[in-house]
Every structure is written in C-alpha cells, then in structure tokens.
C-alpha cells in the first residue's frame, strides 16, 4: 500500500520529533539519534522518552508518549525502543496525532520467524492507524530542507537535490559521505531497513513529485517481483532520473536451458534490460552511482552525444578522447567556423582538432573565451574541461615553500589561484547560459581538495570529477537518459 502524502510531510518535514527510548549512554542508539537531531540545526520541537525520566542533552525526557506536554506538536517518532513494546508505542503515538514513525529497533524480519510475525503485526497496525512506517531495523532519515538528521549514524550531508533511498543503511552513509566530500548535496535520504511498509519504490515515487529533489539515487537488492518494480520505476523516470545500484547482480542463476534463449537469460541480464526499458540509470558500482546522480543534479541534460574536450593537459585530452570513443558518446568533429574562431584566440600550435589542446598558448582570458565559443557552437552537445588547478598546484608548492612571499611569489600565487577560480566559475556560468553540460575533471579533486580549482568547482555546486573517464561515464549516463526521454516523447 502506497503511503499517503501527508505521511511523507510528517516524515520529512515534521513540526516536531520525539525520540522514543532516548538513552543517557552516549554509545547507545537512543542517545546518538537524539544527539544528531539536536546538533544539526533542526528547528522543530524535540522531545524524548526515557523510562526513568531525567534530562538528556538538555532535553527533559518523559516516561512515555502519553506524558508529552499537552501543547507539544509532534509529527514524527524516532523509535529506539525494544521491539516488544513498539505496538503499544505506535498506538500511543497515534493518539497524539503522530503521523510518521522511523523504527530503528531490531528484532524483526531479519531475526527469524518470531521477528517476521512481529513485523507483520507492526505493519498492519501502522496501516490501520494511517501512520507512515519506515524500517524497522533501519538507520534513519535525513531531510536537509528541514535540517533533520534523525539517524543513528553520520554524516549529516550538505543540502542539495539528490534523494537517496536504500535497503542498506550503510550505503546511505556512503552516499552521504560522497556528498560531504564532493559538496554535491542531498535533499532527503532514507535507510529503509527491512522496508516492511515503506519501500524503496515508495520513496522513489515520493521523490518524483518532491519539489526539493531533482534525481533519485537508490540501492536495491533481492527484488521479489521484477515486473512490478520495473513498472513503478518507469512511472518515476518519466518525471525525474533514477540512478540505481543493485546488489546481487552476479548471483541469480541461469534458467533451465530448455531453449537457447533460456540458457542466455540470467536475472541480471533481464533486470538490466528492464531498467533500460524503464529509463533508469544503472550504475556498476557505488562511486559511479553517486557521480551519476550528482551529475543529474548539477548539469543540464545533453541534447546530443557530441562532446568537445578542452584541455591544457595534453595526455589527459588523448585518453579522454579514447574514453569517449569507447562510450556511446561521440567525439565532436570541430566545425570550420569553430576552428576559425579558436584560431583567432590561440597561436597556431594548438591542436586544431578535438580534443582542443591549447598547447600552452593561453593568456589571461583564453580559457573562458574558448569555453564560451565551444559551448555556443551548434555541433557541440557537451564539454569536458581538463587541466584546471595545474597552476594552483604550483602556487601551493610556492605558498608552502621557504621563499614565500618574497621574490614576487605572493603575487603569482594569488594570480594562479584567482585564475583557476575564474575558470571554474566560467565553466558553471557558460553551462548555465547555453544549457549544455560542462564537466570539469582533475585528479586534484581528491589529490588536493583545497586546490583553488576544485574548491571553486565545489563552490559553484558542481561535481569536480576525479578523473576524465569518470566524467565520461557520468556524461554517458546523462546522454542515455536524455535519449530515452527523446525516444519516449518526453521533454
């Protein structure tokens, strides 16, 4: 049963939260959950229950939900209590008008037959009471529009436009860590735990119509009804991109080989085809999944496959061209008019071909000018820009060297860093102006995240790709989705 919309409002943007089973011990989930809710800027009311009462982290706890102050406004309960008491707890919450529950308690479906029965009873009760039930055995919910960090793990990610849904709590944390590292932020994130009531497809459905979310990022495993899953995904992708990481891709046995078709049919191959048909973006691994989602969240969709590569780093340009050629993208053929226009900006030794290798011929304004020329050319659908941060890397060596700031070093350090910032900002502005993706790739994104280049990319809210092949992979995912939309008459 699909949860009602007001349940999601209570779940993601509650006016107040109560932690049931708050603990005084800083190692316990009941403490950590309260800590995380209180420490990340959540502005709603916060309450906590503890059998023995007393104050935890400055919150005066009450023995039970029934003891909450009469004027308390609470929409969400975060449940850390033992499974055995949770049915009574949920009934009490319902009496107080609480519409959503995140159950982190274990001892349910994951723990054997008795747990499965308890889980079914809990789900039936929540259904009957009209409470949106997440979990059990999940790690929590994050919602940056409300600065809500109701989870028993770190981190709290920067705000952004990616909605995360996962059957593995650990992957939620991993995706949030990547968000923290890259600066490309998160709107909502839910660790669905046993997903007894609220499932990953339910969350994707919600994200599809959520104004705070531009793209969904989901981890799934053990899908029982593949066709139903594909049909639900299809409805979501018609509205917004969905990036999927699926566990268990290599398990699924072959069919009994009565026919040749049957011998070739594995669960994974069929799932893969079904996801392509549904317009979902399937990633091969965790970082690829995050980077695809981050690219959907921060770049426009390309209108075609033709990529221009702009580089101040020769070899990187060549291997990027190779990666593009191996993909379903195309290395754009430079039009005569574009070549002529670039000729006016660079000395004749530039590559005069794609990759557009500036060959050290650039002066102060060349890179923004060339980015702009290439982006506005009608034969180019997307740009990968390489070589950002090289000068700032040298600047860093100088700044930390023993001669700084003398000998004119301070001035040149400032100049290099200012230039790299300008280039990153120009890439973002030009992408926006012409509605074409411009992806910036440099290993400095992780080798030296403080380098002025990658730092400025993060400040423009874009992903700075750690290598050009990763940028190509992400861009290819965008192109595949753009083409799917076009083939299905979606704009």
């Amino acid at each position, binding site marked *: 049963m699909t949860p009602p919309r007001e349940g999601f409002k209570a779940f993601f943007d509650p006016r107040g939260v109560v932690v049931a089973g708050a603990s005084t011990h800083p190692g316990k989930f009941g403490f950590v959950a309260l800590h995380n809710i209180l420490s990340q800027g959540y502005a709603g009311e916060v309450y906590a229950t503890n059998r023995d009462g007393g104050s935890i982290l400055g919150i005066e706890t009450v023995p039970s939900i029934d003891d909450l102050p009469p004027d308390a406004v609470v929409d969400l309960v975060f449940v850390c209590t033992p499974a055995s008491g949770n049915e009574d707890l949920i009934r009490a919450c319902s009496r107080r008008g609480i519409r959503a529950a995140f159950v982190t308690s274990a001892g349910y479906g994951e723990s054997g037959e008795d747990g499965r029965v308890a889980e079914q009873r809990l789900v039936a009760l929540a259904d009957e009471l009209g409470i949106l039930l997440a979990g059990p055995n999940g790690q929590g919910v994050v919602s940056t529009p409300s600065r809500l960090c109701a989870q028993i793990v770190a981190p709290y990610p920067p705000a952004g436009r990616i909605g995360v849904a996962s059957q593995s709590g650990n992957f939620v944390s991993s995706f949030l860590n990547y968000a923290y590292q890259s600066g490309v932020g998160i709107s909502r994130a839910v660790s669905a735990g046993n997903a007894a009531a609220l499932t990953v497809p339910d969350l994707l459905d919600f994200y599809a119509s959520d104004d705070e979310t531009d793209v969904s990022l989901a981890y799934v495993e053990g*899908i*029982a*009804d*593949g*066709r139903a899953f*594909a049909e639900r995904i299809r409805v979501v992708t018609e509205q917004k991109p969905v990036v999927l990481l699926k566990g268990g891709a290599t398990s699924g046995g072959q*069919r009994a080989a*009565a*026919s*040749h*078709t*049957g*011998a*070739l*049919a594995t*669960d994974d*191959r*069929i*799932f*893969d*085809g*079904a996801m*392509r*048909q549904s317009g979902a973006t399937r990633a091969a691994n965790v970082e690829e999944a995050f980077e695809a989602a981050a690219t959907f969240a921060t770049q426009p969709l390309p209108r075609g496959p033709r990529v221009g590569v702009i580089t101040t780093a020769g070899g990187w340009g060549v291997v990027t061209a190779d990666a593009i050629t191996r993909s379903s993208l195309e290395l754009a053929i430079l039009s005569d008019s574009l070549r002529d226009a670039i000729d006016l900006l660079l000395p004749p030794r530039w590559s005069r071909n794609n990759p557009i290798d500036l060959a050290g011929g650039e002066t102060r304004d060349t890179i923004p000018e060339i980015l702009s020329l290439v982006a506005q050319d009608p034969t180019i659908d997307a740009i990968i820009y390489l070589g950002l941060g090289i000068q700032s890397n040298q600047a860093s060596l100088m700044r930390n060297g023993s001669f700084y700031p003398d000998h004119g070093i301070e001035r040149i350090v400032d100049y290099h860093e200012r230039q790299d910032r300008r280039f990153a900002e120009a890439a973002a502005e030009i992408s926006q102006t012409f509605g074409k993706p411009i992806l910036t790739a440099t290993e400095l994104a992780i080798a030296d995240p403080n380098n002025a280049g990658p730092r400025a990319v993060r400040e423009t809210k874009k992903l700075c790709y750690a290598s050009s092949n990763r940028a190509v992979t992400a861009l290819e995912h965008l192109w595949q989705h753009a083409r*799917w939309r076009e*083939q*299905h008459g979606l704009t």
Partner: protein
Amino acid sequence: MTTLSEASSKELLRRHGVPFAEERIVSSPEEAIEAAEKIGYPCVAKLNGDRIAHKTERGLVRLGLQSPEAVRDAVSDLFGAAKPEDGEVSVLIAPMLSGARELIAGFLTDEQFGKVVMIGVGGVLAEAIADVAFRLLPLASGDAESMIDELKTQSLFEEFRGEPAINKDSVAIVLNALSNVAIAESNVLSVDLNPLIIVDGEPIAVDALVEILSGVSK
C-alpha cells in the same frame, strides 16, 4: 509444457510477421524431389514432428543437398530414422541459406519478470559470447531499436565480408513480431529463433521452437 513441431512453430510465428524462408512439408521422397525442384538447389531436409525438439543433436537435419538423388537418399534416411515415440512425422524441404552472420532471438516466460524478449549474436559461440539484450514484453515503440543498439558487437551490423550491412529495421520487425506473438498467443511460453541467418543484410529465421502450455490447444 509441450513443444510444437518446427512446421507448426513456423506457421504460428509467420502469421505474426516472423520472416522465414519458403519451405514445403512432404511425406515421401518423391514429394521431396518435387519440392526441391521448385525451391532450388542446394536445399535442406529436416525431419518434422510435434515431439522432435533437438534435431541437430539427433542428426535429423541434412544440409547442402545438391541433386534429386541426394534429396531422395536424405529423405529416405530421415523417415528411416524416425522413432515410434516421435509420433506422426513429415519432412521439411527448405532452401539452403548461407550468410556469414547469425543472430538469435526469442522470448521466454520468467517467474519474476513475466514474458521477456531477447536478441543476441548467434552462431555456435552464442552462449559463450552472450552478447544479448533483453526487454520486458510487450515492446513499446523504440524498444526493439534500443535493444539492437545495445548489443556490443555493433561491427557485425555493418558491411561484413562482402555482405551488406544488416537491415536493423528488419531485425526490429522480428522482435516486434515476437512481441505480437506474446500478446496474441497467451498459451505460448517461449519461442526460440535460432539461428536468424543474415542473407543479403536481411534476417531470415531458419529454425523455430515454440513451447506452449500443455493441455491447451494452439
């Protein structure tokens, strides 16, 4: 679950637009020669019957028959090779098609995904190479084309050893025909078209195996 004879399989699939080579069903060596004269040499003779599935493994396919004598001998042999458990049998006479490229196509009924259709690179290495693409049935507009484009061995679809490029539209027609079979014939559980030989750039199915729910008349 039961299988249809090759001839019945083809008849059913042909109705939905799967392209097959012209072929004739005969019940004696004399009829076989008559058929071969019309179809032309070289030709192929295959034993046909509802209960015969793995013809190649049983040596029930005779290829490259060049003359009336060769046809007569082959067809006599085939009738002689029929076992009582094969039930009622006949022989199919078909032209010997040749092409350097083969594809494989079909659909099956999966317990998780329901009916799913496949296209792949065919030939004896088909299962080892496993360059295949699947979609859930029924296909929507554009699905067949995207399956074909998804195959990794795209060079196979271009001009190849003096043969023209494969007409992808014709391959898409085969896949859409399979989709139509799945919609219209609910008792059909699976279809194997192996191989689809590429003749002058056009896919032609030369063998077909249809599985149906047993106890249901086709």
